[in-house]
Every structure is written in C-alpha cells, then in structure tokens.
C-alpha cells in the first residue's frame, strides 16, 4: 500500500495527483482486513480517463469480433475529457463513433454475415488513427499552454500534468515498439517536472521555472508527437500505436509475443477471503505429499507455464478463474467479459487460432464436486474431463500439447474437489428438519409437475437424488440460436449444490440472484407462482445451494501457500524417475513465480530474505536442470526443502 504517497510535502499538482491515486488505491483495496495480508493484491494502475480509454480502444480493436459498442463508449469518454479545451477534437471523436457504428452495421448487413476481416481492419485502422491524432494534439496543446504559462505555476502545472497523464495512453506502444525512444522521452518528461519550478510551502523550498529546459524538453515531445502520431497517421508509415493493430487479413496471428498487457478495467485478482477448498483425500487425513499425481495436478492448476502466450506472461492460471477450485466473481477483462465472473473462452486474445469469431462469454463455473457433474462445458460439449482440460490448455490458452502425465495429474487433482457439506440435505437430496420452513415449502414446489413444463418439475432435470442434475442438455430458451429453427440452443443441466456461492447465474451469468432465477422460470413457463411461492422456491435454492464454511476464515494466506509449494515439490522424485524433465521445469518455475508473487504478504519484512532464498533455490534448480546437471538439481531441491522446513514455523 502506498502509504508513503502521503509522506511528502509538495503542493505541486503532479505530486498531489500521484498521492491521490495512491490513497484511492489504498481505500479501494482496504475494506475490513489487514492490509499486510493482501499486499499481493495489486490495485489497478490509475490512469487519466483519456489514457484509460485509449489503451482500451487499442486492445478492443485487436479483438475479433471487435466490440464496437465498447469502442464507441470509450471514444465518448475521451471526447468528454477533451470537450473543455478541444471542442473540435471532441466533436470529431463523437462523429467518428457514430460513423463507425453505422459503417459496421452497413458492412455487416451488406455481407449478410459477420463483418469481413478486411473491412474490420480498415475501420479499426481509421478509428485508431483518428483517435491517436486527436489525443496527440490534446497533449501538444497542453504542453504548449504549459510552456506559455510557465510564469503562472498553477496554470502551467495543471496543463503539464494533464499532458503527462494523457501521454500514458501511448506509453505501452512506444515501450514495445521503440524501447530506446521510450526511455529518452521518459527522461524528457522528468526533466520538465523539475523545470516547471516549485512554489514551495509558504515560500519555503520554492524554485523558479527553468524556461530554457522546459522549452527544450517539451520540444522533443512535440516533435515526436508530430512525427509519429500526428503527421504520419493515415500514411503508409505507421506510428508505434498503429503498428500494434492486428496484421493484415490473411496473416494469421497465432501467438502474441510476451509482455502483452490487459486493457484498463481488468481484474484478475483472486478473491479474499479465499473460498474453502475441500480435497477428498485430505479430508480423509491423507498428506498431499504422499499423493504425487494429485500434488502435480495441484501445481499445474496454479501454473501459468502450462499455457502459452499471452496467458503465460499475464500469469493466468486455472486458479485465476477457479479460485481454489471454485469460481472468481471478480474476474473481468474488457472485450472478453460481459460482466464480472465470466469470459468468452473462444476469443482472439488468449487463443487466436481457436477463436470461434463470436462474442459468447460464459459464466465461470464452480468446480466443486466435478467428478459428479459430467459432461463438461456449459453446453456439455466434452464427455471427458481429460479432453475438456486438454482443450483449455491447448486451444483456449494456446499452450503446448500437454504431457499425458500432466493431464492425468490435473484430472486426478480436480476429481478430489468435493462439494461443501450441507447438513440440511439428506443423502438422497431431500431436505431434513434443519432446513427452514420456507425452504421445505419450496421443496414441494420444486418437485411439483407443471403442465407448462410438459408435466415435468424442476426436479426432473435437477434430480435431487443425483446431485441435482440429469447429465442431459436441454433448450430452456436462454440461448439465441443462429437461425430460427436451428438446434444449437441446448445447455448442460448444472448442479444446484453450492450455488449460493457461485452467483451470477445461467450460462452467461445474466441473472444476479437466485430469486431472479425463480422469476425467470416463472415467466418463461407461465408457472403462475404467487409471490410467497416464489420466495419459498428461492429459499429452497438457497438452502440446497448452501454449505458449511464456504470461505476460509483467515486472510493470511502466506503460510498455507508455502505449504502448498512444498506439496508442489513432492512429486519431484517421481518425475525424475519417469524422466519428465519438462514437468520438473514447470514445477520449479511455478514455485519460484508463486513465492515471488506472494512474498509481499509476509507479515514480518525480516523474513523476506528467506522467501527470496527459497525462490532463488528454485531458479538455480531450474538452471541446473536445463544444463543437465542433475546432482545440482537434487541438491537445490534438498536445500529448498530443508530451508522451508526450518522456517515454516517462523513464516506462520
């Protein structure tokens, strides 16, 4: 947490802003628990709205399909920001938004299908080039104004600060395409901050503006803007930003280079408190260190290294979406998610080669009780969990073909995911007397056949005696088909166990509460349930979907994470015996990465060096493995284990 952001004395605007951002970030992440416990939860980088929207537009324009409505919203955001000082630019962006939507609609109509790739790219190019030029001009305007007003610190620093914040729109593109320029220009901005002068506090610490330096440094920025973002746009010479647009049609982009960023507005942080995970064999008193295949699966579930780019660099793992084998209601990526807690898994970003070209985000399913819930996928497209898992790795997240043992391990691990215990439920799925009266009245409704449901009841599909599902696919009217009589609307019946903790609901997460689900069925099938009946049915769903201790009661997770890394390392001997070098490498790499990600949660900073040493041992083991030096590899593993064991108590 940026506490130090307040420990400065400056009245300068730039400083104020940075501190404000820091403190706001603090307030965002601090809700009711100790900040140290969640230090690994990083607040999103705070950017000026123009930079936020520009960066998002750049990301969105590279998707297929492009979410044009979202692009238009971001154009409107930039326009609103520019309105007060560049009304013409603001008007132009609004016009651009309108024209773009019209063009897209017209092109799609004329082709009677999705927007063809060449037209999509042309429109995207036009949107990005005009937006780029407008933002660049706005930055130039503010820099010019600051330069002309250096004698008036307040005015100069206001304009300068806005220019600097808008410049952040272009930074990722410049850093990626022209790293040396990125550094040179970064220094220019730093030099300008100092050259602005400083009013001090009650006159103390005041500095006069350095006009010559400010002119010189701002001149460098303006020259760069003109050359790369203003004059060249629309010509054949693409500036760094336009160069980042997807390749021309016909050139497949099947992999992103490392270093991709997610667009502003994303949230891939895990939940705090963590969902409580129940592994079947652990519940029975088994030590995970003695179940190497399961431990290997546990590691792989937490590993971005089993995926390809861009997921790998972005540290996306199975656990990112299925926190502790459950869900992640916070997960959101603009352009890929419609609402938090879901994502289009056949998208052009994480798995361009396997993109289906349709924006069809799915709610992240809860994986508790997975061994009972086949088939897999919201539409039940995979009967086998192994095949489903392989598809996630290879196609959804562009990973290499996994070793058979890796797939076996992931499946073995996930088959241990247990449902939450629910004392209100009998083994046959009926409610017992621990259930509230409303829920028991709701149970009768749940089992009642309805004429408008062809004589079936809710329980016909959500069979209480079989984990509240029937392993069949049904069209209940939640999917819009490709054409009027197409048969592409059926979805797999989901279990109702644990649903109290897996909102939102339906395959696309369109309904926020179980009460809304009841209302939806009541309307869809004209069930004519009274208000109190609907409440009873909701109470039934809440009761069936409940469970004991759904979340962990502590927010301190470092000790348990470190113990988990000890589990991750436990299959080492087996992997050596089997000659699974790649899996050993993945294990070392995953442990090192995870320690570094979580080490910031340490409560006593004096223990940080221990964590660094642990991670360092995994680095060295990995290097020795790569060099074929197995004795050193062994030694590093043993040192790691010894170091962990001698410090496990301290790190509690």
């Amino acid at each position, binding site marked *: 947490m940026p506490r130090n952001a307040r420990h400065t004395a400056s009245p300068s605007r730039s400083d104020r802003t940075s501190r404000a951002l820091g403190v706001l970030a603090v307030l965002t992440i601090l809700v009711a628990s100790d900040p140290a416990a969640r230090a690994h939860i990083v607040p999103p980088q705070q950017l000026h709205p123009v930079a936020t929207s520009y960066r998002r537009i750049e990301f969105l324009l590279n998707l297929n399909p492009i979410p044009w409505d979202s692009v238009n919203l971001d154009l409107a955001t930039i326009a609103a920001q520019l309105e007060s000082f560049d009304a013409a630019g603001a008007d132009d962006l609004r016009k651009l938004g309108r024209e773009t939507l019209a063009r897209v609609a017209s092109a799609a109509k004329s082709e009677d299908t999705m927007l063809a790739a060449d037209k999509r790219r042309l429109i995207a190019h036009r949107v990005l080039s005009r937006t780029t030029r407008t933002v660049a001009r706005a930055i130039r305007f503010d820099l010019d104004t600051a330069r002309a007003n250096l004698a008036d610190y307040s005015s100069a620093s206001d304009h300068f600060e806005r220019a600097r914040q808008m410049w952040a729109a272009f930074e990722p593109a410049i850093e990626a395409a022209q790293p040396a320029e990125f550094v040179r220009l970064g220094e220019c901005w*730093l030099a300008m901050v100092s050259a602005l002068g400083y009013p001090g506090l009650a006159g103390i610490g005041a500095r006069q503006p350095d006009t010559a330096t400010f002119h010189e440094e701002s001149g460098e920025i303006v020259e760069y803007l003109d050359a790369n973002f203003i004059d060249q746009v629309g010509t054949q010479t693409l500036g760094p930003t336009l160069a980042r647009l997807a390749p021309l049609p016909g050139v497949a982009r099947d992999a992103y280079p490392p270093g991709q960023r997610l667009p502003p507005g994303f949230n891939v942080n895990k939940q705090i408190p963590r969902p409580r995970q129940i592994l079947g064999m652990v519940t029975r008193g088994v030590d995970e260190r003695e179940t190497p295949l399961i431990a290997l699966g546990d590691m792989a579930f937490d590993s971005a290294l089993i995926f390809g780019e861009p997921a790998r660099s972005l540290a996306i793992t199975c656990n990112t979406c299925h926190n502790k084998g459950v869900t992640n209601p916070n997960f959101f990526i603009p352009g890929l998610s419609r609402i938090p807690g879901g994502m289009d898994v056949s998208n052009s970003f994480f798995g361009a080669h396997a993109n289906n070209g349709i924006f069809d985000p799915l709610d992240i399913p809860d994986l508790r009780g997975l061994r009972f819930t086949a088939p897999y996928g919201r539409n039940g497209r995979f009967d086998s969990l192994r095949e489903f898992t392989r598809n996630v790795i290879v196609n959804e997240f562009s990973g290499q073909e996994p070793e058979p043992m890796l797939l076996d391990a992931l499946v073995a691990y996930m088959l241990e995911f247990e449902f939450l215990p629910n004392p209100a439920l009998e083994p046959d799925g009926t409610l017992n007397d621990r259930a509230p009266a409303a829920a028991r009245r709701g149970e009768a409704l749940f089992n009642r056949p309805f004429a408008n449901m062809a004589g079936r009841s809710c329980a016909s599909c959500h069979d209480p005696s079989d984990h509240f599902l029937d392993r069949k696919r049904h069209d209940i009217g939640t999917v819009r088909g490709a054409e009027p009589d197409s048969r592409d609307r059926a979805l797999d019946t989901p279990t109702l166990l644990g649903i109290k903790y897996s909102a939102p609901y339906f395959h696309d997460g369109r309904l926020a509460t179980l009460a809304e689900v009841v209302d939806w069925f009541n309307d869809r099938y004209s069930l004519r349930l009274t208000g109190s009946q609907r409440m009873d049915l909701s109470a039934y769903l809440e009761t069936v979907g409940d469970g004991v201790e759904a979340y962990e009661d502590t927010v301190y997770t470092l000790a348990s994470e470190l113990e988990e890394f000890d589990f991750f390392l436990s299959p080492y001997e087996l992997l050596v015996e089997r000659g699974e070098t790649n899996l050993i490498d993945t294990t070392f790499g995953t442990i090192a990465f995870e320690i570094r990600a979580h080490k910031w949660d340490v409560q006593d900073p004096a223990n940080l060096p221990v964590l660094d040493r642990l991670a360092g041992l995994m680095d060295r083991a990995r290097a020795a493995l790569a060099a074929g030096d197995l004795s050193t590899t062994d030694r590093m593993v043993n040192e790691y284990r010894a170091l962990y064991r001698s410090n496990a108590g301290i790190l509690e």
Partner: protein
Amino acid sequence: MKHSKTLSRIAIALVVALGGLMACGDPTPGDGEQAATGEPLRIAFIAYQNPDQLLESVEPVAEYLETAIGRPIKTFAATDYAGIVEALKAGTADVGFMGPLQYVIAHQQSGAVPILGEIYDGSPTYLSKIFVRKDSGIETLAQLEEKSMAFVDPLSSSGYLFPLETFIESGLIASRQDAEKFFRKIYFAGGDEQAIRAVLNKFVDAAGVGQYSVRLLRPEEREQLLAIAESRPIPSHCVVVRSGLDPEVTTALQTALLALNEGEHHGLLKNLYAVDGYIVADDDTYAEVASLARKNGFLK
C-alpha cells in the same frame, strides 16, 4: 537540467487559506440526537484528489467526533498542504492533517503543535529507501556517483530530505548543494509512483522514495528493483492543532482519536487515510525532522 540555481522564492500567490478550502455540508446533528454545542471545531483534511469524495468519506468520522467531543465539527478539504498551513496560521482551521516536514514548517510559521502521530503497518515511523534496478549492477550508494537520481519533490520527507541525509551520512556528499555535483542529474519526479516508475523504466538510475512505494507496482515489477540503502526512521504523518486552541478541546480530540485504535469505531480509521491507529506525539517527536529541515535551509 540545472539545479544549482539559487533557490529564490517564486512570486506565486498561494491563494489558499480558507478561500482555498472546501467546506463540508452543515454538520448540524440530526433530530433526536444530542446536539453538540459551542463553537465548531474546524478540521482541515488534505485531499489528494477529489475533495468532495474525501469530505464524504470523513463524514462518519466527523459524526463520531461530534458525539465524542461534544462540539459541532466542520470539515474542510484542502487540495494542498499550503492551504492547511495557512489556515492554521490564520486561525481559520483548528486541526490539520499533515506530513512531518509540513508540520515543522507549520510550527515555525504559526506555533501549531502535533497531538498525534499515525501508526502504519504497526509502526509510528517509516523509512525512505534508495531503489535501483537489480540488473543495473549497482549495489552501493557510492556507485551512484555521476548517475541520475529521482527524488519525489523538494519538500518531501521520505522523497528528498531523508534520502538526501542517507547520502550525507554515508559520507558521499556533505550537503544538499553537494548532491548537485555528486549526481549526473537530479530529477524531481512529482510523486512517489512517478519516481519509482522512473527507475523501473530506466529513465533514471536510482530513486529515493518512501518504503511503501513498491506496493504501487505489480509483484513482477517489484522484483526488478533492489533497495540498496534505507534512511533512519521518519516519524509518520501527524494530527496538528493550531496555536491557542482550547487545551480541553485538544485533549478531547486526542482522546477521541486514540479511542479509534480499538473497539467499535475502529473501522472509521479506513476513512482516515487507512492508518492502523494513532499514538501521542508532540513537537519533540519531530525534532530530528526539524533539525534536518534547518540544516537543509527549509527552516530558519
């Protein structure tokens, strides 16, 4: 950039004082509550960004203090420290929140005194650290000679005064003016995040910033940095009252804020810059800051 120029004062009117402060809504208690009576206690908060948002967030604190102290509370948001210092000096605010260096300046200007220090991460002090990139090969302060250095701003405790002192204590420089010769370039980045990102992005070789700045970075970004030195402990931010404020009111305020350290109102601290709690402080707490400020020409 040249920094060897005389630090002459800029003739910029800091039009702040009360005119630059934003008042919160009338803090009259609602019907049925025991009305706090007497002169309102006027508290000036520093708003780092959105004054309206700040005032909204401190409203529950004001309500609590009204009940605890038995006087109406009027809250203000100043968008810079100068506003608070001027308001305390002019007697238009009774209480202000500020950093250590601002306090010692305010004390000299108006006789304002601190009554409480903030506790953060369990400590009433914090550190300034000198960060470099791990891959720079730099491991000692001495290796920063002829390198570029980013500080936060010229009136920052953890982002200038204390890291500068770290160099002085190491014997590498003798004074603030000396720093201009030691480093190839000195930049004031304008904020902690800007300063630490300047190192991360290789715009500069090192930065002197508060210890918590790294928390603004993603874990993989933090891993790229190394702290090669740290300052002596810096007393944390403080709650300051104006000269001449009724001692009874001062004591009541001190007691009420200390009571937030635990108990049913503890949650209000998240609205007070998310501190862990408060500890009693006085002018002596900031003696070392004052001494450094004097040595560097910030105090007479």
